[in-house]
């Protein structure tokens, strides 16, 4: 399916709500749950979820949502997550990705990391304008969401234990949707890297650029700070309350 046709599938408002709900969860979502979130009947939700899958915007699988397995665990239910591929349309046709990759390659070969990061930091500051540094994690989430990072809050236990707990509970167990300001141990993570395709080809260069951009955007020396804490499948940066924020 052409990108423009796939994107057109999102024109239907119910389909769009279902898509946005599934994407925002960052995990597999069942039909019942999606129907409830979108406020439509299960059969209608199932129809639209299948259309989204046919268009390549979602991928479907099956899972026993009860968490049980073996005889008596019930039939597997159909679940949906966002497809990994990207869709974009430019009218008239433009190709900024190739330009970005060529520029990144040249910057990488010339070792221009420092200059690129300086430019990114200035751009972030310019985007922030005259606003004071970002005041708390809720504001950080709004700013990041507006730039497509798909932020979500996560309770961060210390050290590798946190990762183990995540693996058990799944990303659905985080505090998404709740106010997070001032909560000790909360970090804002990001499901989406707006520079994904280029970041995958030139990770240190582009991830460093991304961190510098976010430092400029959120401000440094303020109540929140960004640092690198990469994890497979997500943006490389986390935002947290600054350590020296007590006084």
């Amino acid at each position, binding site marked *: 399916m052409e990108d423009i046709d796939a994107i057109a599938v999102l024109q239907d408002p119910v389909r769009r709500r279902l898509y946005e709900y599934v994407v925002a969860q960052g995990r597999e979502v069942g039909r019942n749950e999606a129907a409830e979130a979108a406020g439509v009947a299960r059969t209608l939700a199932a129809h639209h979820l299948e259309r989204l899958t046919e268009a390549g915007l979602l991928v479907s699988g099956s899972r026993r949502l009860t968490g049980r397995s073996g005889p008596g665990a019930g039939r597997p239910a159909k679940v949906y997550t966002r497809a990994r591929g990207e869709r974009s349309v430019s009218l008239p046709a433009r190709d900024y990705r190739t330009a970005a990759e060529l520029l990144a390659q040249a910057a990488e070969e010339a070792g221009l990391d420092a200059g690129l990061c300086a430019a990114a930091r200035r751009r972030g500051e310019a985007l922030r304008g005259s606003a004071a540094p970002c005041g708390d994690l809720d504001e950080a989430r709004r700013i990041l969401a507006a730039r497509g990072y798909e932020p979500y809050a996560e309770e961060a236990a210390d050290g*590798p234990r946190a990762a183990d707990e995540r693996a058990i509970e799944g990303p659905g167990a985080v505090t998404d949707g709740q106010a997070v300001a001032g909560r000790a141990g909360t970090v804002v993570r990001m499901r989406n890297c707006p520079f994904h395709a280029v970041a995958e080809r030139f990770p*240190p260069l582009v991830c*460093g650029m991304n961190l510098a951009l976010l430092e400029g955007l959120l401000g440094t020396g303020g109540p929140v700070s960004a640092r690198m804490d990469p994890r*497979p499948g997500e943006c490389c940066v986390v935002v947290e309350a600054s350590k020296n924020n007590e006084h």
Partner: protein
Amino acid sequence: MTSTAPSAPHAHLAQLNVATLRYPFDDPRIAPFAEMLDPVNAAADRAPGFVWRLVEDGAADATGLRPAGEDVIVNLTVWESREALWDFTYRSGHLEVMRRRREWFERHVEAHLVLWWVPAGHRPGVGEALERLAELRAHGPSPRAFTFASSFTAAEAAAHRAGEAPSRQPG
């Protein structure tokens, strides 16, 4: 065992990278890098798909070995898959080291990282690793020596070996 079966469980991915130090290893300007070595190596050791890394006898890492020159440190590791290596290299605390690489290392004009498939259980020596790097530098990416940006599967490497093999097998 000299299995050349192309299926993934029989092949592991070896990786060598070389980095030319801008200052002597004990220079204070290198200290931030040196401080990150232990935690990052510990993260590698417990990373999914990690198989092995080169360590100097009696040391915690391979930074004391200088097979490629007095000011060149080497990092030689083996992984179960390209994805496992990629995720560790670029989606773990290791990325922070990479992000700051220009502070500590000279820019390399030639390739400074090479990947190649080895039979599971094989521990590539430094000589073997440097040969692969030389091959990549001389001929560009091939199934024998490649990079993340232009990688080959274990099956492609096995097919490539099979294609070379007949001349090497006397009766």
